[in-house]
């Protein structure tokens, strides 16, 4: 049976995390994971809602040790939690703070006393079977039911090992990883949690938000330092005019990084910036140094093959061929260009969704007779965040009531601005909603010229 170790660090005294100024060793981490695993109830599935990145990682490791499966949905709205219960009726929620998630709850335990005897630190690193299901990562799907993507330990390890090699993490230096993205989404899961476990690195437990918080979090960990972020966070960090502590590598993903922003970041921070391309289905499959290269370089072994309307990824850690939701152009066997996403997909501030899913949620609200989301053309400068609009035919509902109902179903970044109540939608004779007709309708409701081009 093929197995891979839970962590690849060389010794039990190596740093695995930094939390509130304290170094947490691999040994302490394994001890914390065993302790938490013993607290898990019977259920096979765990929704890990810990906001502290170290707590999340302990929760994940505990689940792996106890053969539980972590559920990673794109959002924690009441509707999504209801769907998770349908998917896995035995699901329970691990959280390290107050939560409104309506599931049986396991509270992350208070810290164990440190140095509590020789048995406290395990003698060796646990091995996890390669075919063990570690997580189901969900995408929103298009029918209102979230789609699970099964992640085995073997596939995750092979993917993250390829990523760690690409980033230069396997060459001896032990990095500290600071992330501005949560550990629950695929990018943060791979690039802050798994990369620490499998790259011999140490993760910063915080989830810094404001530029001042990000600077403090960077300053609190030793070099070499890796910042895992997104175009939105990076732009705000550079705009805040702060002295950003020295970094050694910056990673960005979730939304395309405009080349000028990448160039400004490299010049200001004096550090290489690598952008990662991937999807929930495939994991990470390519990188590029955006400041100097338009084309992406695939991970070793990964291939792209056009078939039908889609480009398919296969090989390497991608166990079964996956149709990609983006429009890609192959340059050669190892390189491609990215030309945007398929029409149905939206990506706002790094969160992906499909218009079909959002439309389904809008039309599922009692009192809505018809409704449609609309994605305006994006700001080419890539400086602001473009928001969705939505139109609804809902004679008995107030705008406030409709917004409240929608908020229970979709992530806040997808909330429409504005949400316009109309008498009817401009459907054509076949019942379809041409984009041009929605565009025209949007213009009549956008007379203030508001387009959310911030900055």
């Amino acid at each position: 049976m093929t197995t891979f170790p839970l962590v690849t660090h060389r010794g039990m005294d190596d740093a695995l995390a930094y939390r509130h100024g304290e170094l947490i060793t691999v040994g302490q981490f394994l001890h914390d994971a065993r302790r938490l695993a013993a607290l898990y109830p019977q259920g096979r599935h765990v929704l890990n809602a810990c906001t502290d990145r170290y707590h999340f990682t302990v929760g994940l490791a505990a689940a792996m040790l106890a053969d539980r499966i972590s559920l990673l949905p794109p959002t924690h709205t009441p509707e999504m939690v209801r769907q998770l219960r349908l998917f896995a009726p035995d699901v329970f929620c691990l959280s390290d703070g107050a939560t409104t998630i309506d599931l049986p709850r396991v509270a992350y335990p208070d810290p164990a006393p440190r140095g509590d005897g020789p048995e406290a630190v395990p003698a060796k690193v646990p091995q996890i079977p390669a075919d063990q299901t570690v997580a189901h990562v969900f995408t929103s799907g298009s029918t209102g039911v979230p789609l699970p993507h099964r992640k085995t330990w073997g596939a995750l390890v092979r993917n993250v090992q390829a990523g760690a090699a690409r980033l230069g993490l396997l060459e001896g230096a032990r990095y500290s990883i600071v992330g501005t993205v949560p550990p629950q989404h695929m990018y943060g899961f791979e690039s802050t949690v798994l990369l620490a476990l499998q790259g011999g690195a140490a993760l910063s437990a915080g989830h810094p938000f404001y530029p001042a918080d990000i600077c403090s979090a960077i300053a609190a960990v030793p070099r070499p330092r890796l910042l895992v972020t997104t175009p939105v966070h990076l732009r705000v960090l550079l705009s805040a005019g702060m002295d950003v502590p020295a970094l050694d590598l910056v990673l960005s993903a979730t939304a395309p990084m405009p080349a000028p922003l990448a160039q400004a970041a490299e010049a200001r921070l004096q550090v290489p910036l690598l952008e990662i391309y991937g999807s929930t289905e495939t994991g990470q499959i390519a990188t590029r140094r955006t400041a100097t290269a338009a084309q992406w370089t695939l991970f070793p072994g990964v291939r792209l093959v056009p078939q039908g309307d889609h480009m398919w990824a296969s090989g390497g850690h991608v166990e079964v061929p996956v149709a990609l939701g983006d429009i890609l152009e192959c340059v050669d066997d190892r390189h491609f260009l990215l030309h945007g996403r398929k029409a149905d997909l939206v990506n706002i501030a790094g969160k992906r969704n499909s218009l079909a899913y959002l439309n389904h949620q809008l039309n599922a609200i009692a009192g809505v007779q018809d409704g449609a989301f609309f994605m305006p053309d994006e700001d080419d400068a890539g400086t602001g965040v473009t928001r969705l609009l939505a139109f609804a035919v809902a004679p008995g509902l107030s705008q406030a009531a409709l917004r409240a109902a929608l908020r229970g179903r979709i992530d806040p970044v997808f909330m429409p601005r504005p949400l316009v109540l109309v008498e009817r939608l401009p459907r054509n004779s076949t019942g379809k909603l041409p984009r041009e007709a929605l565009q025209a309708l949007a213009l009549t409701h956008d007379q203030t010229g508001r387009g959310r081009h911030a900055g």
Partner: protein
Amino acid sequence: MSLSNIHTLPAAALPVSKADPALMREVAELMVSALNLDTLAADIAPDEPLYGDGLGLDSIDILEVALVISRQYGLQLRADHEDNGQIFRSLRSLSEHIAAQRTK
């Protein structure tokens, strides 16, 4: 999730002061222009929640607002976590925080 560090920051050289209506109006104008909100500044009620059921701001908005506030008033917002529920609870609480922490 604790925001306690925000409240224990020293109140700089300026005395803690209540947000006056002029400052609240100014902050409301900043929010509307930074976020291109579909709302008039004068229509943002001082105690209406900025998150969720009120104005409906999300964490990306909060980052944008934090950025313009840092430029306009010379203060850097801090939090342990992106739950900025306290400062961003309402226009009044945000303005009070600015009044207490501004350096320009």
